[in-house]
């Protein structure tokens, strides 16, 4: 039922778009669904779009893993070392407030216009999201659970592995889920600024040629990539946190 309504909504919007285009709004600005479908078909037939998609996906995923890994490690370290966290706090806040995209020109100077620059840009954005979430997660670890393990003779490393990390992991995933679109922003903005490959390049190239249908087709491909990455993170979440998804069939009580 819901799905039927959704499909109906999409059909209605596409129809309205198709009819309005060229009549109410100049086609130059909004293109039309049929033209976009043709543009998309051309992209797919040509095959180059998969190459560009692969480039962007590689940048986003590499940036995601690099930034996520560094953010997770930094969050764990600072979460367990409150003094260090206090010392670094103003610097981190300052760096956090900086729009990371503004670093792109600097990264071009440092890393050139190759894939490295986009990876580092995406990683920088992802780092803070994952770092902040991991840090909060580590700070919220139950003191009682830590104490119980210490009484059992657990070492710092064992409490880290058995309590701190699993307890923080749901926060980490919140950070990772938030990061997916930002990793793509990093990759695509990087490509738009300086590149001859990737979906950001396709997008700015199409816009440069005033081909609105191609711009919309590129946006569609980017959306598909974002959805795929999102699904991958959710799948990883399910696999790594089985306890959150274990069916709760016991009686409800208050």
């Amino acid at each position, binding site marked *: 039922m819901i799905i039927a309504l959704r499909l109906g909504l999409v059909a209605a919007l596409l129809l309205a778009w198709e009819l309005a285009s060229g009549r109410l709004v100049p086609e130059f600005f909004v293109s039309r669904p049929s033209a976009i479908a043709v543009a998309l078909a051309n992209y797919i037939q040509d095959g180059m779009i998969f190459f560009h998609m692969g480039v962007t996906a590689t940048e986003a995923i590499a940036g995601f893993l690099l930034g996520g890994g560094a953010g997770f490690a930094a969050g764990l370290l600072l979460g367990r070392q409150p003094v260090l966290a206090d010392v670094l706090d103003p610097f981190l806040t300052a760096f956090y407030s900086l729009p990371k995209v503004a670093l792109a020109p600097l990264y071009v100077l440092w890393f050139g216009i190759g894939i490295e620059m986009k990876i580092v840009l995406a990683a920088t954005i992802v780092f803070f999201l994952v770092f902040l979430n991991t840090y909060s997660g580590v700070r919220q670890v*139950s003191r009682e*659970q830590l104490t119980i393990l210490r*009484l*059992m*003779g657990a070492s710092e490393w*064992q409490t880290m592995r058995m309590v701190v990390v*699993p307890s923080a992991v749901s926060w980490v995933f919140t950070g990772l889920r938030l990061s997916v679109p930002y990793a793509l922003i990093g990759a695509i903005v990087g490509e738009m600024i300086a590149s001859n490959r990737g979906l950001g390049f396709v997008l700015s190239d199409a816009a440069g040629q005033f081909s609105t249908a191609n711009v919309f087709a590129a946006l569609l491909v980017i959306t598909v990539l974002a959805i795929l990455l999102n699904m991958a993170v959710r799948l990883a979440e399910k696999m790594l*946190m089985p306890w959150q998804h274990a069916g709760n*069939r016991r009686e409800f009580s208050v």
Partner: protein
Amino acid sequence: MDWPVTMLLFEQVDMDFSANGRAVPAVRGVDLAVEAGEIVTLVGPSGCGKSTLLNITAGLFAPSRGRALYNGAPIRGINTRVGYMTQNDHLLPWRDVLGNISVPMEIAGLSQARKRERAEELLSLVGLSGFEKAYPAQLSGGMRKRAALARLLAQDPETLLMDEPFGALDAQLRLLLQAELRRVAKRFGKTVLFVTHDLDEAVAIADRCVIFAGRPGRIAEVLPITLPVDRDLFKLRFDPAYNELCARLWSIIAPELASGLAASQ
């Protein structure tokens, strides 16, 4: 015959907590010696410092005044020779029952096979066989208690600190676990400090019962439980000596409970 060894010694222990910057006396002048291998139950009105003594023994707090010695040495920091079963089970939500019970054995570095075998033993002991793969969130309160008890036994500590461990259990299972606790403790010479509000339980499992009076907490009386060491808990209720001790405990604690009630109103 071995000489009795004092495992735990409290000397004139005072404990204060602070609330809004003011020191609130919680425990006053506690003197208590617990021998190795002895089972001591602690009873008394709520908030009279029974749990505080367990916390001091575990090394979570140091006494405000007086001395607390474990095995002849002052307790400094976390005391890893005790196992502590608090009122909250503190199971790890991200580990299933088997994983939770394995925690102390992983810390001790037991082999995978040994861990598995011991965990199965303990699960069947506490009646949780078949629930190995269940997560704590999927268990009832009583089942979580049983899992926590199995974890405590898996740790196999020298001294067991237990804070109302059987409170949430049904009468049959409670009796079974009381008997099992006594059997394990006596067989392996464990020292047990056991807080309970159930006076029958306080007599049934104890070698000695320490009765607290409230606010600030202090020891009102120590009742030696003169029942046989190898008593049969399942037949205890028909034993006149047992019933006499229960009546005795009741007569000591009833005025305490009444005054505790009056004080809290």
